[in-house]
């Protein structure tokens, strides 16, 4: 038999001025099941709480209703009071008579009082159907997996490892460093990318808490938050890293030349190679697609020159497993291929290059020794036209969104061009200059004033050739005139697009991705680093286009989230989650379909007692369920209930009005 205690709060004058509290208290006493109905000036104060504790013990109350402010305010406070008095904290219901009655019906005391009584009656009815609930604890494996060794992955791995949590960092290419390693100088400070990145790369390699697995990829992820099991494929490098000293004799002697992807194909690398001189680990790998020994069984020069005998042509891919509690996804980005811009003659004119090609050329360690050169004749260009929004903000040819970084790096390119070729002139076609960031607008000003780059507002409509020059035609909208620029070199600021392998990786990890292929965050504003799947976090351009400062900030945020997750041996979870009544479950798996967290799986149970035949039923993964109740409403056989918001609770509320 239910014994409910109701405690109505005056909230000073907040409630008492607009609601006749004594009348409410009297009316409440008449509700079936109510044993105690009391009032107090401030229920949330110590004496108020004491009053509740005493009443629970004296009257052996089975549930408590506090009529006061919003449950979003003091639910936790009163739950603790219940628990202190030995009552299960989830036997509490709060009737929100302040926000929902006294404050919003200040001109009608009678109606407000009536409404308050109704709200209390509903809370009492609900509390009678309340069940005792207990916090859920989930064990945690304290190791993080970081996917991707660009600046995002590096930063996340270092921050987590600095908190003495072991990290496994995997990178699909032979070296970490990512896109940032390809950059020359970085905006808005123009410090050299290599100079700030390589120390961090070295830190990763030498950190006692970081296990670096280059040339590898995730192929499977099972489990749930705190308890993931990852399968990682280590691709065959054909070089024994433990004995290789990185002397480079093999790369020097290798006769096979292949287009160098690190330098955007501007020069060649060998079939056995380290991607760039500062690579970490600084050990070569053999490119199996081009090595003639692996393809045709001829050559083997590298093995002959290797003094350590580190070359092993028989090496095969290896699959290893790691148990991890959290995953940070930092796969980075690709650049959009500008081929669809036929009106610019992309593909026909050699002297139209992409921004990353320009970046490699002006890089001091790049293939042209830091000078931008025209690919057609190798001459140093004088007039360079930079065109922004290539593929970005272009739903006809590319993608709808703004790539965010092009405005800034184009300004940087203009400045770098000026540094490298003093008598050059930069013309920049833009639509808007988006320079929102610390020191960004100032940086653009530097390009405009110090470098005297000519900014022209308008999209270029056509590029055609005249002699060995390119004529770039666009509108200068400020002038309201069509202009043609005679250019030696055209640089296209191509759009940032998600890493091409994002969708399959997202499917493999069980997280969602948007229509472009960016991984989706749990909430665009409030949970920008989490995914919908607990324990999987996003850093850098895997989520959306970002510049380096934002990427690093998000990577550190990921690390903080991981450290928070690992702060105890177990994770505590709110018990207000779904439960399955397997007896009645039909196994239709509709709940599996609608669950946004993949928290529902299936299991097989015997058909009947002692039966050998099995049937499929749904099973809630307690660690993953967030308690939204989507599955409850969708379940036709009413086999699922949501603790704290069960059908009987809600129906009691409805019928008690």
């Amino acid at each position: 038999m239910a014994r409910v205690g109701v405690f109505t709060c005056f909230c000073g004058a907040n409630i008492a001025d607009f609601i006749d509290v004594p009348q409410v208290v009297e009316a409440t006493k008449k509700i079936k099941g109510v044993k105690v109905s009391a009032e107090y000036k401030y229920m949330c104060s110590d004496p108020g709480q004491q009053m509740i504790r005493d009443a629970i013990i004296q009257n052996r109350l089975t549930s408590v209703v506090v009529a006061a402010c919003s449950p979003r305010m003091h639910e936790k406070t009163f739950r603790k009071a219940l628990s202190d008095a030995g009552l299960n904290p989830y036997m509490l219901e709060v009737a929100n008579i302040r926000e929902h009655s006294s404050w919003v019906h200040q001109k009608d005391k009678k109606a407000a009082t009536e409404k308050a009584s109704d709200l209390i009656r509903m809370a009492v009815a609900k509390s009678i159907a309340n069940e005792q609930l207990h916090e859920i604890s989930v064990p945690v494996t304290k190791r993080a997996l970081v996917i991707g060794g660009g600046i995002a992955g590096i930063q996340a791995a270092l921050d987590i490892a600095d908190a003495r949590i072991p990290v496994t960092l995997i990178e699909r290419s032979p070296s970490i460093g990512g896109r940032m390693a390809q950059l020359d100088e970085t905006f808005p400070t123009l410090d050299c990318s290599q100079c700030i990145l390589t120390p961090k790369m070295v830190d990763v390699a030498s950190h006692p808490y970081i296990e670096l697995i280059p040339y590898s990829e995730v192929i499977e992820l099972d489990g749930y938050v705190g308890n993931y099991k990852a399968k990682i494929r280590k691709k065959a490098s054909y070089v024994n890293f433990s004995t290789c000293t990185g002397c480079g004799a093999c790369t020097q002697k290798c006769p096979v030349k292949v287009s160098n992807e690190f330098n955007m194909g501007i020069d060649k690398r060998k079939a056995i190679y380290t991607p760039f001189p500062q690579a970490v680990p600084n050990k070569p790998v053999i490119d199996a697609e081009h090595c003639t020994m692996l393809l045709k069984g001829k050559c083997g020069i590298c093995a002959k020159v290797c003094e350590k005998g580190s070359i092993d042509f028989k090496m095969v891919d290896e699959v290893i497993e790691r148990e991890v509690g959290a995953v940070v996804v930092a796969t980075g980005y690709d650049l959009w291929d500008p081929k669809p811009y036929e009106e610019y003659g992309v593909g026909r004119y050699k002297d139209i290059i992409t921004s990353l090609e320009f970046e490699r050329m002006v890089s001091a360690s790049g293939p042209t020794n830091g000078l931008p050169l025209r690919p057609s004749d190798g001459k140093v260009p004088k007039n360079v036209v930079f065109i922004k929004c290539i593929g970005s903000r272009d739903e006809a040819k590319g993608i709808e969104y703004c790539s965010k970084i092009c405005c800034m790096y184009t300004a940087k390119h203009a400045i770098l061009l000026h540094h490298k070729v003093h008598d050059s002139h930069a013309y920049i076609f833009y639509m808007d200059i988006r320079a929102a960031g610390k020191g960004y607008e100032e940086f653009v000003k530097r390009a405009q004033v110090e470098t005297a780059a000519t900014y022209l507002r308008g999209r270029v409509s056509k590029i055609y050739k005249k002699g060995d020059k390119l004529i770039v035609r666009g509108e200068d909208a400020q002038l309201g005139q069509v202009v043609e620029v005679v250019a030696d070199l055209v640089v296209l600021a191509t759009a940032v697009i998600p890493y091409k392998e994002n969708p399959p990786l997202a499917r493999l990890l069980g997280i969602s991705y948007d229509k472009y292929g960016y991984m989706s965050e749990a909430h665009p504003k409030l949970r920008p680093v989490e995914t919908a799947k607990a324990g999987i976090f996003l850093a850098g351009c895997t989520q959306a286009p970002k510049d380096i400062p934002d990427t690093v900030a998000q990577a550190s945020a990921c690390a903080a989230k991981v450290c928070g997750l690992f702060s105890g041996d177990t994770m505590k979870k709110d018990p207000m989650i779904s439960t399955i009544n397997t007896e009645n479950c039909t196994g239709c798996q509709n709940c599996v379909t609608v669950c946004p967290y993949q928290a529902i799986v299936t299991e097989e149970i015997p058909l009947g007692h002692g039966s050998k035949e099995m049937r499929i039923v749904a099973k809630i993964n307690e660690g993953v369920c967030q308690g939204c109740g989507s599955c409850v409403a969708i379940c036709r056989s009413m086999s699922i209930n949501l603790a704290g918001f069960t059908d009987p609770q809600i129906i009691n509320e409805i019928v008690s009005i």
Partner: protein
Amino acid sequence: MEAEVKTTQGAIVSVENPEITAPADWQPVIIGILCNWCSYAGSDLTGTSRIQYPPNIRIIRVPCSSRVDPWFIIKSLQATADGVLISGCHPGDCHYISGNYYARRRFLVTKKLLNFVGYHENRVQFSWVSAAEGPKFAKVVAKVTEDIKKLGPLHRYKKENF
């Protein structure tokens, strides 16, 4: 279909059944089922901003609009309420990612079905109210109350039920 409040001899008449009447000072009972993260928080904000609205609504808190089973609505109309308001997060803002999208589909079908079997379409209403939309919540409640007042009392099956 715009409903107009009908009266006979000083009594308010139900739009669905002219035999059902209520005294002239009749006040409808409206059940509001609000999602915890957006609309309930929004209704709290209405309170803290002291924005006044009609006192007819009784609020029930659920975690997400997707928790609302259509039969809660049917039950409400049968048992106690003259109208029901269900409110959740705006599309894209759902705390649970996609709950309100599923709910939206169910609501539309339920609303049309109820209308089909003879409930005025304004008896059951839905809204998106975010946690910041305190003023909007007050407006929504005022509109819903106003609409339902025009429809008159609803106790089609109540007498036999309880």
